[in-house]
């Protein structure tokens, strides 16, 4: 083959790195094994980096050292400082970097193909490498610009409202076709304009694809871009004949795809409808107009404290509002006080509660809630009927019984938590008018056994804690 022959030991090292990454993900099958898994991931990365450095003539070790040090320091500081509630935007920001790095590597390979051992006998870049390079750069660029938009929307720097261009499907399909066509043409003509046009168009399509998607759909987008960044890494792995990159690419690609699928399924929406965009602006924007004039009961912090202290079992249902209000620590305190009174406290987590998969779990974990008190929907749903109080805090859609009964509801068919079966439902939110992500009213507010606790989630829980003391 025209590739530079690589020592089998080097290839073995990359295989070992790939296996480390598999072990890293496998570790996440339970919290106990997860930290060992994460260490395995670090070891795998160290093996990959060191193998690369020792097996190449490094003309610029100091520069590389400085580059790693700068990047590492930035990454480390961000990781230490970031609030857990900001995880969705952090993940988006990180993805954009992976995407950009893939583009840069692709460009470097294009400019200096000898270094990558992808030059054919004629002195030109190998055909197969051109396809892999083109695909890698295109996917990387889409990942980059898409993730930037996702970050801006999630971080609130940009309105979450879908921005709908006229004829957007037409423009998008045209651009995608142009990119694929140019990559095909690239195999015939490796002129710079082809390469850079592919890159430029790919950046553009990344923006175009994501701006029409509403802010609340961003988690699916982030996950999808995660998947893309994996496929970009795999494409680079094909170019470099690097097992570690191929394995990683497949792992990450599968991970993003499966998480997107899980989210779409739990929201009962098709992936296509998410990607086509136009749905779910800011919660306020989408549901501002709902007129509510049915009777409902308002409660105070004291009422809530009294009711819960009398209870045998309280199930807490956290949602997006709890994350926004950062109420998890106050909530944990409340749970501790209740347990001190002999009340059994459990947490029920809907698969799409909050705004990213596992969002609520990580926040509760941050507040040191034991994870064996935290249950998935299937495991706890039958328990509401046996509970005295369901304490819903900042959640809305995930408790909406319309999903079970009302065929016209946008969330019809989505599995929901049966909070209304509890003896009393306490519902913490800021206003009767504020709806959730899906922008629909919730029948539970108006039920006889429901008491609305209208206030910011954190403030309300703190007041409840005070009244208990």
């Amino acid at each position, binding site marked *: 083959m025209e590739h530079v022959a690589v020592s089998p030991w080097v290839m073995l090292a990359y295989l070992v790195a790939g296996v480390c990454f598999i072990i890293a993900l496998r570790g996440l099958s339970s919290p106990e094994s997860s930290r060992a898994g994460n260490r395995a*991931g670090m070891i795998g990365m160290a093996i*990959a980096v060191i193998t690369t450095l020792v097996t190449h003539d490094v003309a610029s070790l100091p520069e590389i050292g400085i580059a790693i040090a700068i990047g*590492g320091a930035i990454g480390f500081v961000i990781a230490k400082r970031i609030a*857990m509630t900001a*995880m969705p935007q952090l*993940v988006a920001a990180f993805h954009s970097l992976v995407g950009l790095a893939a583009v840069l590597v692709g460009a470097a390979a294009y400019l200096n193909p000898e*270094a990558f051992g992808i030059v054919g006998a004629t002195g030109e870049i190998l055909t197969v490498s051109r396809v892999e390079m083109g695909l890698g750069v295109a996917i990387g660029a889409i990942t980059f610009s898409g993730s930037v938009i996702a970050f801006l929307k999630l971080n609130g720097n940009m309105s979450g409202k879908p921005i709908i261009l006229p004829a957007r499907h037409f423009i998008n399909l045209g651009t995608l076709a142009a990119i694929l066509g140019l990559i095909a043409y690239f195999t015939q003509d490796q002129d710079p304009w082809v390469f850079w046009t592919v890159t430029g168009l790919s950046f553009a399509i990344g923006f175009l694809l994501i701006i029409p998607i509403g802010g609340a759909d961003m988690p699916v987008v982030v996950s999808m871009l995660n998947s893309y960044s994996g496929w970009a890494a795999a494409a680079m792995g094909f170019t470099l004949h690097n097992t570690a990159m191929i394995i990683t690419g497949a792992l990450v690609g599968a991970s993003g795809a499966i998480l997107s699928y899980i989210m779409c399924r739990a929201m009962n929406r098709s992936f296509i409808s998410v990607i086509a965009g136009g749905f779910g602006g800011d919660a306020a924007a989408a549901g501002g107009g709902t007129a509510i004039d049915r009777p409902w009961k308002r409660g105070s912090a004291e009422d809530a404290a009294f009711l819960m202290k009398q209870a045998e079992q309280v199930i807490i249902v956290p949602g997006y509002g709890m994350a926004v209000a950062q109420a998890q620590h106050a909530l944990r305190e409340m749970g501790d006080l209740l347990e001190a009174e002999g009340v059994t406290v459990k947490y029920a987590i809907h698969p799409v509660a909050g705004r*990213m998969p*596992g969002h609520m779990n990580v926040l509760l974990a941050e507040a040191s809630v034991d994870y064996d008190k935290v249950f998935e929907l299937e495991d706890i749903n039958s328990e509401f009927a046996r509970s005295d109080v369901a304490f819903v805090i900042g959640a809305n859609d995930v408790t909406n019984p319309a999903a079970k009964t009302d065929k016209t509801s946008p969330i019809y068919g989505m599995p929901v938590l049966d909070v209304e079966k509890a003896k009393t439902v306490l519902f913490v939110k800021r206003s009767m008018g504020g709806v959730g992500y899906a922008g629909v009213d919730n029948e539970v507010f108006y039920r006889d056994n429901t008491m609305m606790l209208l206030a910011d989630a954190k403030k309300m829980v703190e007041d409840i804690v005070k009244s208990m003391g």
Partner: protein
Amino acid sequence: MDFISILSIFVLACFVGYFVVWSVTPALHTPLMAVTNAISSVIIVGALVAAAAGGSPSAKWLGLAAVVMASVNIFGGFAVTERMLAMYKKKERK
């Protein structure tokens, strides 16, 4: 490595990815996103190759820039995962 070997490795890795991700407990889906982020920065290998090689200064600087970005991700991704995972505790307050 010939193309077909690489393809075989890729196909099998896709199966492994499929199974391993489904085996992740939903409670750890956020750390999963963070750690996949970190490992997808294995693309740093390509960046290092570009940065290490002589020949094309522009390729070298592109490579170095990519090294910086990938490093942010690697250190940031693993560190934030570690921070999250350290929070998952069982019965430690008793």
